[in-house]
């Protein structure tokens, strides 16, 4: 899978957000916490798997592999649900 590169994350008043225009009336705002942003930035511009995201979490945070894998899968699902993957 791959991150949709058309989506830009912007810092607005300290919040890291992506804006998705669903139609003329609806705009969805997705906010990223530090971890979600770290994964996003690290995995932009390349094809990746849940394994890659898990590896990145293990590199940076002091967590066991099961927790990291679980979080990575959640992150991927979140991106999927919000149409941020292609």
């Amino acid at each position, binding site marked *: 899978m791959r991150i949709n590169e058309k989506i*830009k994350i*912007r*810092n*607005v*008043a*300290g*919040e890291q*957000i992506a*804006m998705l*225009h669903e139609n*003329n009336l609806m*705009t969805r*705002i997705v*906010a990223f916490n530090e971890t979600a942003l770290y994964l996003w930035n690290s995995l932009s511009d390349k094809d990746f798997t849940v394994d890659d995201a898990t590896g990145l979490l293990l590199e940076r945070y002091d967590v066991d592999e099961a927790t990291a894998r679980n979080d990575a899968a959640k992150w991927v699902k979140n991106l999927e649900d919000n149409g941020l993957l292609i």
Partner: protein
Amino acid sequence: MACSSNKRTVRYFIGGHVMVVNGGDSVRCVREMNGFDVFEIGENSIEKHDGIEPWIVNLDEKVLSLTPLKKVYEVESDGITSRFGFRGDIPAFEMESEERNVRFNMEYRGGQIFGTSLNDADAMRFALWFAFNLFGSEVGAYGVHTSCVVYEGQAVMFLGESGTGKSTHTRLWYNNFEGASLLNDDSPIVSTESGKPMVFGSPWSGKTPCYKTQSYPLKAVVRLAQAPENKMRRLNPLESITALFPSFPPAFAKVDELNGKVLDSVSEILMQVPVYKLDCLPDVEAAELSRKTIFGK
């Protein structure tokens, strides 16, 4: 009347900027509209606005480019369909109404607006609002949809969808609180250019004729919702974005670069100004609650 009808150019000082409209028919149309006269500046007063790069709106072209518009936004109001988009990479705006005999288009290129001439007052009002925002996006000054009061020398913007009761709420302020007044009832100019968010009166005040040239520092932003009881709370940063952003020009949200500029202004405002949510009835207690929350009395 007769002496003013043949002017080919007119200058306005709006939101801290000089906007010049060129074109005989279009100038006549603007000068006959409510609201613009107090913003008009004579050619002699130009020294006073020295150093301000004028925003030039030429509305006298016979025909513009025939390149089709790549539309990103469309809205209908007063029987007029307005579209914003691009011709090639040039921002373009057009309006159309068969019943009102309006066929207008303009482009923003080389730092100026070039458009066809326009005779319909409602269409002209919107075209100039849009033109102002195109220029304003370059510097961080936008027409924001709000009813705005001034109290103790500071501006409070009440936001909400049309019909939420913004005007009703601000009326409760200026009818009940000594020293409170209406600055604008539809679209004042909000500028972050000086580093401090400021609200300027404008010629765009919706149904309420309230055309003021003054400007005030922005004290607070309040998003209104109708409710069976009065309740007010401060919003967190993310909620504040979703409260403030939709009141900026909606057409710009559809263009990544413009959206980024709008968000820069939103960000600048949110770093300095609190945003509240007010659930309220249309009663004076609601106004007292918002005054107490914002001003502490």
